[in-house]
């Protein structure tokens, strides 16, 4: 019976879609693949956990967690990113990976992984039953956030002046600065937006997956597979690809012979996609 696993896959699909979109969202607005998305989300989740433990009202705790992730992202965008601006995209992406590892180290130093932790949200107790499987509102909210991220960024990029500047910046930083775009300011705004998304996604992922800094940071690995479906550029493609990969991975549980290896499904799917589909087109990642 495959349908219950498909329903269970909605949650996993939401995880991959949100992580994938988080990876690509900055790429669209600033031309940088953000491997620190998961780590920034982890910071938000850990801060929120600490504040909730100190009996801070939940709304304030969530807001504070998101604010910390946003501030860190904004800080990196304002201090480190400009110094890497002249380097090629691979170097900029690796810079974010370094930032992710730095955050991971800081989380280890401050919180460690020795105390059992769990972050819960009120939406965990509300659910929709689908093929005898409960799909919690948290998982649906994660899907909603992924879709909202895609929609908001699309709107920002296509319908606002700032968005136009971001597109120009993502396309060519040097020409953008020559035509009068305030590169640092626009870039910082992109990092700020990415930080807000990372914070929100972090809270949801910590609830749905686990409150573990290493785990959340390295969710970028399956996210890369999701991003490949969007050829590292299309947010819609990434969200759809990530969701499909999650549902497929879960559905494979019902096939006993390959069930044990199902976590490789997103990568196999991405490989097939590259070979059959993207191989015929120009991959956006190449400069």
């Amino acid at each position, binding site marked *: 019976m495959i349908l219950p696993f498909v329903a269970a896959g909605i949650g996993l699909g939401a995880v991959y879609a949100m992580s994938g979109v988080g990876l690509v969202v900055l790429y669209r607005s600033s031309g940088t693949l953000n491997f620190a998305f998961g780590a920034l989300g982890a910071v938000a989740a850990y801060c929120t956990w600490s504040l909730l433990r100190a009996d801070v009202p939940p709304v304030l705790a969530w807001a504070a967690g998101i604010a910390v992730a946003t501030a860190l992202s904004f800080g990196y965008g304002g201090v480190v990113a400009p110094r890497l601006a002249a380097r090629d995209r691979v170097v900029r992406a690796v810079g974010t990976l370094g930032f992710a590892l730095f955050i991971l180290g800081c989380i280890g130093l401050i919180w460690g992984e020795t105390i059992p932790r769990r972050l819960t949200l009120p939406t965990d107790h509300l659910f929709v039953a689908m093929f005898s499987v409960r799909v919690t509102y948290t998982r649906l909210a994660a899907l909603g956030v992924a879709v909202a991220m895609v929609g908001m960024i699309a709107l920002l990029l296509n319908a606002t002046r700032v968005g136009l500047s971001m597109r120009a910046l993502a396309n060519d930083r040097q020409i953008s600065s020559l035509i009068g775009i305030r590169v640092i300011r626009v870039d910082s705004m992109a990092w700020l937006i990415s930080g807000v998304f990372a914070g929100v996604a972090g809270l949801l992922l910590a609830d749905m997956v*686990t409150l573990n800094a290493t785990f959340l940071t390295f969710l970028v690995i399956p996210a890369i597979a999701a991003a490949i479906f969007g050829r590292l550029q299309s947010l819609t493609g990434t969200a759809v690809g990530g969701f499909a990969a999650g549902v497929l991975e879960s559905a494979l549980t019902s096939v006993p012979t390959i069930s044990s290896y199902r976590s490789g499904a997103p990568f196999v799917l991405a490989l097939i996609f590259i070979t059959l589909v993207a191989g015929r087109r120009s991959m956006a990642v190449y400069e």
Partner: protein
Amino acid sequence: MQLFVWLRNLAINASVVAIVVLYSAAVAHAAQPSCGLNSGKRATGTPIPIGSINGVTGPDDFSSSAKAADAYFKCVNDNGGINGRPVNYIMADDQWRPDVASQVATKLVKDDHVVAMIGSNSIIECRANAGLYDRENVLVIDIGVAHECFTSRNIAPVNQGPRLSGVGMLRFAADSLGVKKEACIAWNIPGAMDWLCNGFAAWGKKHGVTVQNVIVDPGSSDYTSALLQAAGGAPDAMLVAFTKGAIIQSLAAAEDQDMGKTYKFISLASGYVVGLPKAIGTYWNNRFWTQLEFTPLDGTGPDNQNWIAMMDKYGSPNDPRDTFSQGGYLAAKMATEAMLKLDPAKIDRASVTEALRGIKNVRTDMLCGPWYFGNGTRHNANHTGMIAVAHEGNWKPEGGCIEVDDPELEDILAAEKSSVN
């Protein structure tokens, strides 16, 4: 009259002061850990290098046993050391990678010249380094996780290990919870299925309990599918054979599906962590059982109280007070007591190896039975455990000591019997 009142008040005040002083002294004494020579003098001799390898950075942090051993050795060093020589306790992180485990073990054994390995706790360390320890005549008293920790002549775990822990849990589930069919949900890592789940199945076959295996990738974000797969076999109980992080993850997924009302959820001793019942929440009140390899964490026996005092004084407040921490404390204590019998000038690897191998009949309130190292070709002295259930954010003990009747233990039990006779 006034003099009488003054004298009466003086007597009352003096009594109050005396009571406060006596109480404070008693509290201070109770909180003072006992270790080694208990001399109160710091050891200043040539340090004795002792090593430990732990999975720290990776899917979970397994350093609590080494942190407890470190606390114990710090206490020993503050109290005369090993007859004047302090212990230089070197902790290494294997990052859950066999290549790193081999690398750090080689450094400890060949460069740092450790005399023994005490309090290690890692998923992969024994598998990677058992051969090295045999070749270099290094003895290990550790927290055994992998099968190889229980099949080597030079490694003697203080704990039961996941296999016996699971069999003990299954025995309790069958006897006390009426479980006839169990799903063993474990990671797709070497030993998890063939040694653990299949071992539970072997026990179950003898006792009328069916065991169904469900494999999960250690890096998986999807425990819901694994639980649904397990539920497909209509078990009475689900054994989540993971470390604490993944136990929380899998129980959260089970709670989302409201499975706690239908199935009994049980775990190995890795679930017995202070704070875990609080982390998983009240939904799991009397619905999640775990096995204990040592006495309950709040046990009132002298050794357990000493472990608590030791961690309070020499550990960090953030060091977990879990079952592995108890094991690390015991390993360090037993090694210290064995080394104290040696001439400090002659302490080297050979003499320590001989001393550790000579450890026998250690009785402590932290273990249900006696512990020994001995000359056996493999070691599993701890084979009696207890059970606790999550209750109101805490662990509540369920019953007393349970002897684990794992078919794999036959050689150990036979050797114990012959040594008694």
